[in-house]
């Protein structure tokens, strides 16, 4: 009997460790933010995404037309397959603020493929704060 209880106790302890570790690793990171692009010069079509996270509460894109024209920048959220969770939001005046939320995904910012001039991207930001 004692050996059975000892064996069951070890299994329960191991299970508890696994459950705890899973909970810690899978927990969404709240209070997280990321400037996932900084000080870049982008040509038409250039883009980048942030890391994936939960409860993303907005995207901001700071950019300037240092190389002329009125280049446009856009933002959206994507899923883990890279598909858009919403449609691109565009502007030709930085900073662009995207106030949309997503339960889980990554933010993506992009220089519009129709741009005739390079654009200076000071930063692209997202977070769940």
């Amino acid at each position, binding site marked *: 009997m004692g050996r059975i209880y000892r064996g069951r106790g070890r299994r329960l302890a191991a299970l508890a460790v696994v459950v705890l570790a899973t909970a810690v690793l899978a927990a969404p990171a709240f209070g997280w933010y990321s400037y996932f692009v900084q000080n870049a010069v982008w040509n038409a*079509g250039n*883009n980048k995404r942030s890391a994936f996270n939960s409860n993303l*509460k*907005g995207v*901001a894109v*700071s950019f*300037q*037309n240092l190389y002329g024209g*009125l280049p*446009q920048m*856009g933002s*959206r959220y994507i899923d883990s397959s890279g598909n858009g*969770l*919403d*449609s*691109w*939001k*565009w*502007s*030709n*005046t*930085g*900073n*662009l*603020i*995207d*106030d*949309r*939320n997503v339960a889980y995904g990554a933010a993506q910012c*992009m220089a*519009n*493929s*129709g741009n005739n001039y390079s654009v200076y991207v000071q930063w692209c930001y997202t977070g769940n704060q």
Partner: protein
Amino acid sequence: MRSRGRKRLVLAVVAALAVVAAVAGGVALAGGGDKPPPGVSAGVSALTRLPPQAHVPDNVAWFVTFESKATGTDPAKALKGVRLLRQNLGVAHADVYAFKNAAGSPCFLLTGDSGTCARSPSAGTSGLHWTIGGGDAQRPSSLVGIASDDVSQVQLTVDGAQVPISLENNVAFGEFPQGHQHATIVVVHRDGTQSTADVNLQG
């Protein structure tokens, strides 16, 4: 005979000078008089005419603080200057809040959607600081922007179809279904001049 020739020569020179002067004057008029002011530098009177908001929603306060810091503006001062320019817009019944940053540029937010906060009022399309596109399962795509006082009308064409755009309190707004390819924004100024922006909506 020689005297008549001289007179003809003088007349020809005078006529040529008159033509040059007229052409130069025309060019000067077209270059200076026909060009609308850059960005929204003609002024956004709703930001002073309407009363500041005593309380703003949390996401608007976050936007004001974030954009104030990003544009070298005192966040506390910016929060005191927030105006509610339009309410209950579109499918999502969204509102447009705005404030002026340290550079004098209007920073606006269509709640739950988008906005801009330019470094200078002279930035962007003449007469309109805009965002376009977006949309998800809950709401269609939209055009929203802050128009300067010298703008009489904002027009939007999406894949060749006209989209109605309302213009009140310096805010232009209209919605259209998602999935379109191309948009053309036309800003009509009170002096009859127009500014346009073409956007590839799919990037």
